[in-house]
C-alpha cells in the first residue's frame, strides 16, 4: 500500500483538514456568532477526524510492517 502512492484515507484526511482550517480561520476574519460557533464545532470535528484518520493510517502501516517482520519506517524508503 505505502509504496504505491497516497492511501485514499490520507487524501480524505487532507481534504478534511483543509476544510477544518478554512472554518477555523474564517472566525479570525469575521468574529461574529455564526463563524465562531462553526469554527468551534464543525471545524473541531473535521480537524479531529482528519488527525484520527492520519493516526489510523500510520498505525495500520506500522502494524503491517511488523507483521511482515521488517523494521518499521525503513521498508518504504528504498
Amino acid at each position, binding site marked *: 500500500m505505502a509504496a504505491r502512492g497516497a492511501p485514499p484515507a490520507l487524501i480524505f484526511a487532507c481534504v478534511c*483538514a483543509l476544510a477544518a482550517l478554512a472554518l477555523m*480561520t474564517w*472566525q479570525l476574519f469575521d468574529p461574529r456568532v455564526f463563524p465562531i460557533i462553526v469554527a468551534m464545532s464543525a471545524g473541531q470535528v473535521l480537524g479531529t477526524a482528519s488527525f484520527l484518520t492520519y493516526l489510523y493510517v500510520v498505525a495500520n502501516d506500522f502494524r503491517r510492517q511488523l507483521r511482515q517482520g521488517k523494521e518499521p519506517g525503513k521498508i518504504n524508503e528504498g
Partner: protein
Amino acid sequence: MPTSPLAVIALGCAVLSAIIQLAYLIVRPPLVRATKVWLLLGLGILPIGAAFAGNVQGFEATKERAFCGSCHLMTLHEQDSDDAASLSLASRHARNAMFGSENCYTCHADYGMFGTIVTKAGGMRHVWMNLTAYRGVSLDDAKKTISLRDPWKMNGNCMQCHSTRDPLWLKVADHKSVLDDVRAARVSCASAGCHGLAHPFFVSPNPVSP
C-alpha cells in the same frame, strides 16, 4: 485583517499546515518515514496549534461589544454604548477603560471560579433563542418581551467595583437607607428610582425594583 498575536499564530499555523496538505495532495508521495513526519506536522501539530490559538482568540472575540451587537436584537445596545454623548449607565461604563470595548461582557458575565464557563453556556442559550424564538421578530416587538433572566444577579456584578463598603458611598443617604436591600438584590442599582436603567430605551417588563 486580524492583528492580535493569537490570531497571527493561528493564521501562521493554518497557512503552513495548508501548504503541507496541498503539497501532499499534488505530489502524492509514497508513505515513507519522511512523509509521515511531514503529515504529522500538517495534519496534527500545526492544525492543533491553529485550533488552540484560534479558539482562544474566538473566546476573546466573544467578549467584544461588536460581537454582542452582531445579533439584530442587540443593535440598539451597541449603538448606545458607542455613543459618546449618551448618558445611559451602559454607555458611561463603556467609556471607562476598565470596561471599554468589553463592557457588555464585564457587566453581564457571571463571576466566580466557573463564571466564564457559565457565561458561555448562557450565551449559547441566547444564540438558540435568537435563532428560534426571535429569528423573525423585529426590534420593536422584541423590546416588549426581552428581559434579564436573572435580574437579581446584576447587583452582584455592580458590587464587583462598587463594593457598598466605601465610606464615601455610605455617606450618601439613599445608599445608606437601602443598603441591606441592595446587597440582597431586593432593590436594583439600575432601577428607575436609583441610577436609572442601564439601557433606558429597552425597558424590561419585569425589573427588580422596590
